[in-house]
């Protein structure tokens, strides 16, 4: 099969983007809020507010892609940018009335979407209406007024003088809200310019323009007519088709209350033809699947070396002046700085820097077309083999894989397909996630791994997140301290969202209470689903029962104590040397591991590490966190082994750098090499861990606390005997008589009474000590019965640094009922 390349696919004229930049208002003087915390920089608030703009997806609006903070409160907005601004075409080509009506229709559809989300454009002008080669238009830069909180977060005025409705000037341009009706006025001006094909009042100065607009308030009769007369275009005015004239005149009504809304205007008969045309697309049963989106293209572009900041510098939108020029004129002894004001002309730059995509095209030029249509599953090996071999990056470290544009292209294309088929593709998603999770889709993939249902949003909407509760104070003091190095989480919107999610969770889980740490636990979900609070909440709600069942009970001490006991036992199981040392210096997990497990490390690691850790955690069960704990200890093993109590505890008070990829590898390896029942707990969620009488049930905490070696279930022992006899060493410590009467196949007999426990010397057990010394990776199962001491012997083995020692729960008799039997009599040992 001959295959084309992907370039035509990538070179879609609409898949282009550009950037604009401006400065946020700088805080003056001492910058502390009422709570004593420093004021959040306005650029962070802007970035937080702007996130929601990314979710706007309408054919007549350019999509927002990214918001970047530069130095000194510089804010950079990256958005789709394609086509030609109408302003560049006026007076240069003719616009037919039908064309203008179509443009009016598309602008109105765009504005309708914005107004529906309570976003006012405020800067609508022919400069930011982009005409596409297809004849359609797209609005650009419509989010500035929203992201700057109605202009209050920037120190330049957010409006386009000529297009601004008179009431905006009358009310004062700094008023903190705006009626969407002002956009309708601006639309009127834009359409008037097109219909008259004249750049209006181009020769007037700023003040004169404002006076001109205000003079409209005095006009009796048609404003359009007045404009036409002033531009020597009265003839065009008379020739204008009635329907178009009517639209413009209704828009240019000086009374906002009499000006129509988008919806009202869209009901005009002249627009109905477009509505009918649009309807055709929706006759298809399901919406067409986009092969990739502009968000993904932007992501790949960045990975392929695209750098917005650099590009802005190259194109002259960011100019750095020598540091000496930015020295303050005067610094008072209290630290107040004077005379460092920025030139107001540089605060906002109307220019747009188009981002060049050639490097990306070049990078992806060789990629064959079928890559965009990955074969998900096929029963035919011939077909499956015909697929191009996927880009092999398995050997590369995770951080490199995440930065490799080509690999991410493959992963994103494949996983987005799979997500599209969720929940039916859940198994494939799990399988692929085990390899790695592409960062761009992590939020959605996590939601899929947590089995989030489609109706999550309704559930969230219905929960009371407003009513004051006694927990509020605690939540309020915790949030401003939770992962605040992250821009999204430190923004005002981030704080509000986190608070709502936590309140919703407390409300929804009346059996639980808010524990400090829940904030950190929620942070990764909010970070990944910043524009979808409902999903973040749904993820948290699914995550807690799976991994932290009953950890947030008002009295959780039993649950936590049991968990910490199992942690100690797991250390003993895999690393007896370390366990013995920690035991000797009385270094208990209670002293350091509570925040680890209560927040599943979200309180101890920065976000980027948590993401990689949880990528794996989500594929495992609730015992995985203790394996992570073990892997952290393993990384610090050498220092722990040579340290006393104080040094050890200090080490954990300020956790040193931990390599997360290593953590994941280590913990996955111990997780896979630990019989499931070794980490089973009485307090784990029965919904996820079904148990029968051959499992470990009914073990009391007081008993558990006495045991340094874990127990193993009869089920696991039977499994070893039947399927993996070479991976186990069964030690029967009952007396020889009972042993010879009946014993487990392949077990050896070391009668309890025959061993001297006075010193920790393995040779004390005599004949079989060699088997233990050379046991390798084998799991050592100690089998006794009701009459034997089941603590001394395993502890003795542990103290002799024998690894993987565990005790059969319920003793020998538990195996009697197993059929087909694993027992044998007259053992010839």
């Amino acid at each position, binding site marked *: 099969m001959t295959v084309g390349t992907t370039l035509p696919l990538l070179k879609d004229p609409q898949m282009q983007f550009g950037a604009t930049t401006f400065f946020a208002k700088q805080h003056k003087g001492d910058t502390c809020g009422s709570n004593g915390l420093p004021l959040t920089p306005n650029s962070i608030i802007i970035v937080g507010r702007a996130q929601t703009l990314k979710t706007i997806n309408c054919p007549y609006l350019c999509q927002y892609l990214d918001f970047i903070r530069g130095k000194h409160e510089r804010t950079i907005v990256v958005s789709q940018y394609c086509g030609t601004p109408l302003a560049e075409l006026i007076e240069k080509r003719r616009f037919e009335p039908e064309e203008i009506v179509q443009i009016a229709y598309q602008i109105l559809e765009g504005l309708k979407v914005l107004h529906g989300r309570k976003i006012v454009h405020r800067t609508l002008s022919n400069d930011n209406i982009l005409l596409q080669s297809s004849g359609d238009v797209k609005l650009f830069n419509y989010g500035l007024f929203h992201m700057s909180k109605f202009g209050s977060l920037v120190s330049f005025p957010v409006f386009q003088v000529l297009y601004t409705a008179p009431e905006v000037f009358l009310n004062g341009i700094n008023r903190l809200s705006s009626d969407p009706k002002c956009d309708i006025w601006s639309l009127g001006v834009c359409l008037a310019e097109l219909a008259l094909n004249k750049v209006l009042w181009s020769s007037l100065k700023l003040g004169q323009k404002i006076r001109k607009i205000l003079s409209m308030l005095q006009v009796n009769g048609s404003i359009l007519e007045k404009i036409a007369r002033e531009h020597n275009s009265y003839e065009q005015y008379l020739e204008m088709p009635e329907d178009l004239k009517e639209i413009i005149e209704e828009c240019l009504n000086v009374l906002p209350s009499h000006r129509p809304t988008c919806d009202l205007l869209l009901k005009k008969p002249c627009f109905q033809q477009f509505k009918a045309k649009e309807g055709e697309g929706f006759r298809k049963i399901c919406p067409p699947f986009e092969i990739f989106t502009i968000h993904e293209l932007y992501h790949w572009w960045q990975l392929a070396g695209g750098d917005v900041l650099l590009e802005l510098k190259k194109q002259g939108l960011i100019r750095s002046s020598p540091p000496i020029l930015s020295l303050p004129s005067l610094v008072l002894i209290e630290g107040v700085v004077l005379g460092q004001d920025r030139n107001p002309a540089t605060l906002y730059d109307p220019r747009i820097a188009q981002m060049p995509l050639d490097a990306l095209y070049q990078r992806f030029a060789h990629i064959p077309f079928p890559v965009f249509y990955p074969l998900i599953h096929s029963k035919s090996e011939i077909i499956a083999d015909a697929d191009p071999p996927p880009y092999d990056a398995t050997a590369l470290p995770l951080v490199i894989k995440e930065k490799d544009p080509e690999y991410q292209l493959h992963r994103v294309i494949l996983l987005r397909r799979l997500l599209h088929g969720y929940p039916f593709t859940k198994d494939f998603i799990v399988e692929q996630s085990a390899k790695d999770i592409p960062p761009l889709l992590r939020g959605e993939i996590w939601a899929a791994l947590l089995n989030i249902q489609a109706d999550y949003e309704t559930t969230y909407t219905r929960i009371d997140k407003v009513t004051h509760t006694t927990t509020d104070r605690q939540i309020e*003091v915790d949030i401003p301290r939770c992962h605040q190095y992250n821009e999204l989480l430190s923004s005002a919107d981030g704080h509000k969202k986190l608070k709502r999610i936590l309140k919703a969770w407390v409300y929804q889980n009346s059996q639980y209470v808010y524990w400090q740490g829940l904030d950190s636990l929620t942070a990764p979900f909010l970070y990944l689903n910043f524009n979808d609070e409902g999903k973040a909440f749904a993820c948290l709600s699914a995550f807690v029962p799976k991994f932290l069942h009953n950890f947030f009970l008002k009295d959780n001490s039993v649950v936590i104590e049991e968990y910490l006991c199992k942690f100690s036992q797991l250390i003993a199981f895999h690393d007896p040397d370390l366990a013995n040392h920690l035991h000797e*210096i*009385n270094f208990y997990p209670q002293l350091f591991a509570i925040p680890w497990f209560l927040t599943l490390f979200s309180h101890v690691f920065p976000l980027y590490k948590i993401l990689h850790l949880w990528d794996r955690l989500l594929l495992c069960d609730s015992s995985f966190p203790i394996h992570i704990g073990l892997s952290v200890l393993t990384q610090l093993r050498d220092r722990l082994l040579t340290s006393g109590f104080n040094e050890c505890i200090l080490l954990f008070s300020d956790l040193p750098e931990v390599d997360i990829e290593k953590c994941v590898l280590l913990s996955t390896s111990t997780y896979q090499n630990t019989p499931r029942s070794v980490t089973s707990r009485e307090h784990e969620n029965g919904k996820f861990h079904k148990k029968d009488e051959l499992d470990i049930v009914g073990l009391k905490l007081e008993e558990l606390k006495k045991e340094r070696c874990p127990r193993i279930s009869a089920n696991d022992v039977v499994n070893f005997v039947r399927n993996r006899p070479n991976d186990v060493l069964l030690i029967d410590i009952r007396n020889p008589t009972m042993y010879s009467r009946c014993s487990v196949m392949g077990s050896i007999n070391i009668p309890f009474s025959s061993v001297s426990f006075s010193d920790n010397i393995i040779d004390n057990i005599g004949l079989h000590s060699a088997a233990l010394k050379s046991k390798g990776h084998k799991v050592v199962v100690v089998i006794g019965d009701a009459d034997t001491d089941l603590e001394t012997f395993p502890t003795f083995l542990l103290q002799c640094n024998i690894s993987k020692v565990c005790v059969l729960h319920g003793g020998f008799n538990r195996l009697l009922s197993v059929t087909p039997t694993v027992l044998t009599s007259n053992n010839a040992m």
Partner: protein
Amino acid sequence: MANRSGTAQRPNGQSQGKICQFKLVLLGESAVGKSSLVLRFVKGQFHEYQESTIGAAFLTQTICLDDTTVKFEIWDTAGQERYHSLAPMYYRGAQAAIVVYDITNQDTFGRAKTWVKELQRQASPNIVIALAGNKQDLANKRMVEYEEAQTYAEENGLLFMETSAKTAMNVNDIFLAIAKKLPKNEQNTGQGGSVQGRRLTEGNTEPKTGANCCK
């Protein structure tokens, strides 16, 4: 463990003087600045967004007092009411405690009083308690009057200072004042208190003197 007289040989020029170790615990409502005080005292740092403490954190700091070297083993506890059940594990056997409140929040002062009562009832009888009114840098938003807290402190025999972890005001001073007040008499056996770090989960009572010195 081995006895800690080893610390006496530290090359700090103080080897001739006494070395005393004290266990000190910080208590108080959450977000009053306990961790910030410790961080300022131990590392001279201040983080605006100091993360909340879960469970407890452990730090040490050594100060010199005349001819004596005092080593504080500091347990910084979680403030949230729910972690209350863990608190005895940390204050048990402590020779000193700093109860912290936020001068801009009256409730935290109330909570501080509760902590003082609990310490007087449950902790070692000779425990030295200091009351710290933190966030003094926000004095213009003060809700707890200096005199009110001072009177309370005098009535209950507490050391009292208003502190600011942010500006470092009185931070070293309060630890120093505690160090001065702690008994450093040599007849105390050098063994008792030295293991307090590991007694956390046991119910043992600490030596009555509550302090230990080793030469």
